[in-house]
């Protein structure tokens, strides 16, 4: 058979591509649920670490902790809010909100969907965990920050990155950097504002943490992204300060509350 004829080449490549596509489609659908479960677990882990749960005393992730269990036990409510602090109904904070999309909307000034996770700590305190996403030096950076019930004290924070420089910018994902945020105040000249990452050292400022030496750009990116997201969350937290009873709730619980009120 002439393996160099046009007909042969076209038929050969078509069959090959169809077989390969079938194998890949099969593998993709067979592994999809496991991959999704892994991604969900990684997200639960970051959220719980932001609330200082499942951590070793140094603030590193505890390898033995069951983050899915922790998440299910402690996250008592979730909601999605807009930039005016109003709850957006029908959107699931965990499943439906893509931080990257929201980051782009924030940049362009479009309407945003901001996730809030309410976490009940072991001692009964309730903290609100909010998200952050931004552009680092080489790629995306993202993180979560837990805010105490007084709406201005940071309970904990966690950051991660796609491709910051190892040993320099990558240190934002390490305990010595993110544990600095604990106990810092979300204030800016007496108003609500974000915690700043200060080059040259925070020198004990209650709304600032030390930047990473040698990683000026990444530190700046964390600071700016936090400022951008807390500016968007500002309405939510100021509303809560003026009306502390307003609960953060997901749809199911809202429905329950209305029923019990009747």
């Amino acid at each position, binding site marked *: 058979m002439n*393996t*160099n004829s046009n007909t*042969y*080449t076209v038929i*050969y*490549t078509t069959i*090959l*591509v169809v077989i*390969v596509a079938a*194998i*890949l489609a099969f*593998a*993709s659908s067979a*592994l999809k649920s*496991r*991959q999704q479960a*892994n*991604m969900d*677990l*990684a997200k639960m882990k970051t959220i719980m670490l932001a609330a200082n749960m499942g951590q070793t005393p140094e603030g590193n992730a505890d390898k033995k902790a069951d983050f899915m269990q922790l998440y299910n036990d402690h996250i008592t409510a979730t909601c999605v809010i807009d930039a005016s602090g109003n709850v957006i109904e029908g959107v699931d904070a965990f499943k439906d909100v893509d931080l990257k999309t929201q980051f782009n909307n924030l940049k362009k000034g479009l309407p945003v969907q901001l996730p809030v996770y309410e976490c009940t700590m072991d001692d009964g305190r309730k903290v609100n965990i909010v998200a952050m996403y931004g552009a680092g030096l080489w790629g995306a950076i993202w993180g979560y920050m837990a805010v105490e019930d007084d709406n201005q004290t940071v309970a904990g924070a966690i950051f991660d990155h*796609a*491709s910051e*420089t*190892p*040993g320099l910018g990558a240190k934002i994902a390490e305990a010595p950097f993110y544990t600095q945020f604990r106990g810092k105040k979300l204030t800016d000249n007496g108003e609500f504002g974000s915690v700043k990452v200060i080059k040259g050292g925070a020198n004990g400022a209650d709304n600032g943490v030390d930047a990473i030496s040698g990683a000026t750009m990444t530190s700046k990116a964390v600071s700016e992204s936090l400022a951008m997201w807390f500016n968007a969350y500002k309405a939510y937290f100021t509303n809560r300060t003026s009306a502390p009873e307003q609960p953060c709730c997901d749809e199911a619980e809202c429905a329950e509350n209305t029923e019990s009120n009747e």
Partner: protein
Amino acid sequence: MNKEIYTKPFFLGNPITVLVLGICSSLAVTVQLKGALVMALSVTIVTACSSLILSLLRNTIPTRVRIIVQLVVVAMFVILIDQVLKAFAYDTSKMLSVYIGLIITNCIIMGRIEAFALGNKPWPSFVDGACNGLGYGMILIIVAFFRELLGSGTLFGFQIIPASWYLENGGWYMNNGLMILPPMALILLGCVVWIQRSIQKELQEK
């Protein structure tokens, strides 16, 4: 079967130190031993399996679209590995990030297919692919061993250098920060080539 198929990829024909192929990934994934090991295994599976499949197909492939056919087969194995890692070793897959996908561009694979698999029977091709993948992996692991030990003081994530030696605990030792950056991988790789050439004199140019 010629015994050289087994031994050549490790020493006289090592893909990294002699043929200087696959340098990019050997700089990128050698910060930690775990990453290097998974990468080495992934490349070995891809080279071995794609060499086997393409050797089986070698008499049917139209010459004009030969490279594209090779690419399709290699890409299929790489995507499969990527998917499996994402499902069963999520943390490792996150650590290796794009470098698993970039196995497609690893010159060792296409090089072995073009140079060997298309002209040889399936079994020798499989062995050739596997040995070249392992030869690549061997260098990766040597480099990663030194980078992780001297850069982070750990091996496979376990602390090897006693914590009391460190400066912050009142000792005298500090991790070498340069080790975890790519330039040091290149320097280490240079040292490996140097050592190999001073032992195997037949590699030295006259």
